[in-house]
C-alpha cells in the first residue's frame, strides 16, 4: 500500500454564525469570526489517496487525474468564493475548518476510479489544520 498526497491552495471568505443563537451568543462563541461581513483565509488542501502501484504504470493514481478531480470538485466551487453564501452545504452549515474537511471528503468520495480516498487535510492557516478520514 502506498499513500500519495496532492496539495492545492484556495482562498475563500467565511464567517461563523448559528441562526439558532442570539447575536450575543454568536459573539460569545465565535468571537471575531462572527462578524457577518466575513473574513478570509488562504486554505491549503492536502488530499491523500491509497492503493497499490499499478504493475504496468507504477502509479497509485495518475496525478493529472487527481488534480483535475480536485479542481473540478473543490477549487472550482470554493476558490475566491464566500463559502456561507456560494457553496450550498454552507448555507445551512457553519463553514468551520472541520466542516470544510468533511464537505471536501464528501465531494471527492466516489469520484476516484482507482485508489481509495484516505485523508482530507485542510489548513486554515499554516499553524492550524483539520484531518478527516471519512470516519462516522
Amino acid at each position: 500500500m502506498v499513500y500519495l498526497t496532492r496539495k492545492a491552495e484556495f482562498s475563500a471568505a467565511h464567517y461563523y454564525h448559528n441562526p439558532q443563537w442570539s447575536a450575543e451568543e454568536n459573539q460569545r462563541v465565535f468571537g471575531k469570526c462572527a462578524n457577518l461581513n466575513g473574513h478570509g483565509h488562504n486554505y491549503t488542501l492536502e488530499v491523500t489517496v491509497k492503493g497499490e502501484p499499478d504493475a504496468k504504470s507504477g502509479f497509485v493514481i495518475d496525478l493529472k487525474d487527481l488534480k483535475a478531480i480536485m479542481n473540478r470538485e473543490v477549487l472550482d466551487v470554493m476558490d475566491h468564493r464566500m463559502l456561507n453564501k456560494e457553496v450550498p452545504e454552507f448555507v445551512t452549515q457553519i463553514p468551520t475548518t472541520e466542516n470544510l474537511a468533511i464537505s471536501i471528503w464528501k465531494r471527492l468520495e466516489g469520484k476516484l476510479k482507482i485508489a481509495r480516498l484516505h485523508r482530507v487535510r485542510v489548513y486554515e492557516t499554516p499553524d492550524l489544520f483539520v484531518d478527516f478520514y471519512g470516519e462516522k
Partner: protein
Amino acid sequence: MKAYLTRAYLFSASHRLHSDEFSAEKNAEVYGKCNNPHGHGHNYRVEVTVGGQVDATLGMVCDLAELDTFVNNEIIERYSLENLNTLPEFKEVVPTTENLSIEIFNRLRSGFKPAEVTKIRIEETAMNSFEYSAGAELR
C-alpha cells in the same frame, strides 16, 4: 516507551517514466511530459521514520549519527545526481515515486539494525508526496 523519530534527507536525480509494456502512444497518454525520452529531474526530499523503545540511558530511539551514516551510504550515495532509470532496481520497474518509496523503504528496513524503519515519505515536488509503510495504516 515507544517513540518515532523522523529525519529528512535531500537528493536530486533524473528519471523518465516509461513502460515497455505500453506502446509509444500509450506511454505518452499515461505519462505525459514525464515520458520525455531525455528524462527530467527532481529535488527529492526523503523523510525516514524509525520507531523503537526510548533507550533509558541515552534517551534516544537510535543514534541519529548512525542513521545519517546508513542513509547517506545506502540511499543518498546511490541516488544522488544519478539517472534512476539506469539503476538495476529500475530496469524492470518504472521509477515512479511510488516505486521509489517502496525501494528505499525495503533497503532501509532490511539493512538498518539499530531501530525499525517504519515509514518512508518522499516529496517529489512541494505539491506531491508519497508514503509507504509496508501495509501499516498511516495516521
